[in-house]
């Protein structure tokens, strides 16, 4: 649905995007995770040409966005909704008028706008706020209005620019769940950028990590979490810095799905006579069908003649094994 290839963008002497490739499939929620200054914002804005890349290709639904201008570009943009960290609602207009804005821009007659606005407000659960002004709403409600507005012109794609970063924890979860629901119910493809890991682990099917304008890793969230040595896994499990003593090796064991219930530690003790100790452990449930569970265990395994054999055995059993 969205294909970026070799996208580059420089501002004077800082490189915002340094050859970015990204592929978002139709109907998925794709998260780009990165710290501020990583180039996320620029990346997102190349998709609807609010930013023009210096080079590279940006395709949305097969159309090369970088080649568009004038009326063609405006038409393409109306097929791409966008929500922002600070909502960007018209403060002197009612909720209903804000939601109707894209319809007015598209030249839809008044008779069509009314029912569509009512429908959209119902979708985001704000039917009773149609005549309120943004100042009378909470942050979460304002973001719901912005989401309804972004959906007004029935876009195929929704771009989200840190949509939950200005919201508290509880509201963040509500907005994320709303986005996930819209993704499922409307088949909406969502590309979001965030610096919050929980956004990715809660609603994203796929993710990329952006650092200094480059994608350092990308793929299905479940795969990234399960892959030993992945950056996303390291951040998500956030295992402590506890190191084993000199006589032992620190080993991270990653297990997925059904293996979660298996007694790994007991097996190591019994089978290989290794007195392992647990340094840290965490479990993550990846979003997507059935809630894919991934766990990671940091063990101190005594260095001995059978240690290598034990680790090899774990690998053959399908565990991710990574020595630190």
């Amino acid at each position, binding site marked *: 649905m969205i294909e970026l290839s070799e996208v580059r963008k420089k501002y004077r002497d800082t490189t915002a995007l340094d050859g970015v490739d990204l592929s978002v499939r139709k109907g998925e929620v794709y998260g780009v995770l990165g710290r501020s200054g990583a180039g996320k914002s620029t990346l997102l804005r190349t998709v*609807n040409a*609010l930013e023009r890349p210096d080079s590279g290709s940006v395709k949305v639904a097969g159309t090369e966005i970088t080649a568009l201008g004038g009326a063609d*570009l*405006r*038409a*393409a*943009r*109306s097929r*791409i*909704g*966008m929500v*922002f960290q*600070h909502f*960007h609602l*018209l*403060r*002197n*207009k009612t909720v209903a008028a804000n939601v109707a*804005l*894209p319809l*007015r*821009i*598209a030249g839809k007659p008044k008779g069509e706008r009314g029912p569509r606005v009512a429908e959209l407000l119902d979708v985001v659960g704000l039917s009773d706020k149609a005549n309120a*002004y*943004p*100042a009378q709403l909470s942050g979460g409600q304002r973001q719901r209005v912005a989401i309804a507005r972004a959906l007004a*012109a029935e876009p195929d794609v929704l*771009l989200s620019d840190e949509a939950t970063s200005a919201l508290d924890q509880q509201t963040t979860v509500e907005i994320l769940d709303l986005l996930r629901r819209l993704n499922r119910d409307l088949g909406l493809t969502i590309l979001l950028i965030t610096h919050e890991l929980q956004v990715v682990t809660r609603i994203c099917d796929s993710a990329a990590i952006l650092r200094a304008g480059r994608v350092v890793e990308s793929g299905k969230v479940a795969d990234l979490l399960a892959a030993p040595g992945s950056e996303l896994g390291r951040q998500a499990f956030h295992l402590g810095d506890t190191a084993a003593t000199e006589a032992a090796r620190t080993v991270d064991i990653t297990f997925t799905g059904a293996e979660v219930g298996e007694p790994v530690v007991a097996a190591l003790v019994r089978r290989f006579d290794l007195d392992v100790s647990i340094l840290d452990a965490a479990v993550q449930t990846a979003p997507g069908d059935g809630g894919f569970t991934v766990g990671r265990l940091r063990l101190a395994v005594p260095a001995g003649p059978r240690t290598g054999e034990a680790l090899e055995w774990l690998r053959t059993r399908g565990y991710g094994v990574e020595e630190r």
Partner: protein
Amino acid sequence: MNLDWAELAELLGPASLETLQMVGLATLWTVVAGLPLGVALYSLSPRGLRPVGSVYKILGLVVNVGRSVPFILLMLAIIPVTRLLVGTSIGSVAAVVPLAVAAVPFFARLVESSLLDIDPGLVEAARSMGAHGLGIVSRVLVPESLPSLIRALTVTVVAIIGYSAMAGAIGGGGLGAVAVRYGYQRFQYDTMIVAVIILVVLVQLIQFAGDLVSRRLDRR
């Protein structure tokens, strides 16, 4: 002070109407020309919709020259233009031309700064919806800055009232002309004071109305 109220009313009534007519017409033309000029200044400015540095600088210079020439000189300087447009350079209708010419650059700058106060994120949001430049101006910039534009207009109308009194001194009509003729030239201070009081009340009313409307429209 021994005031003949009937005589005063006969003198100041028509003069007040003349002032209202002059200020009203000048305000109308100021909005018609100043609003687009202000939007153009904003659009071309470095933070605007379509920044063009060179054109912005030239336009800015013209506006600044318009604002810095003393009104009384401006009024005299554009007499040929006034004659061309109105047919005469004397009277309250003729005074509308220099009043509008003086107020347009003033109002345009106020419009520019009102628009610059709008969060650029709103403009970006409108762009993301596929709005073109004029759509952004009419659907986002003007509605969102309306309270601030009303305040700008209020300040402008008050300035026009001030100028109109000056216009009265050199051939225009209205309350200013009466105040100068009777007070300054004939030493009938009572007439002058009443004329000035009417001007003060007029300014107060305009300011009050402007504040009220601006507050009503402001939902922030």
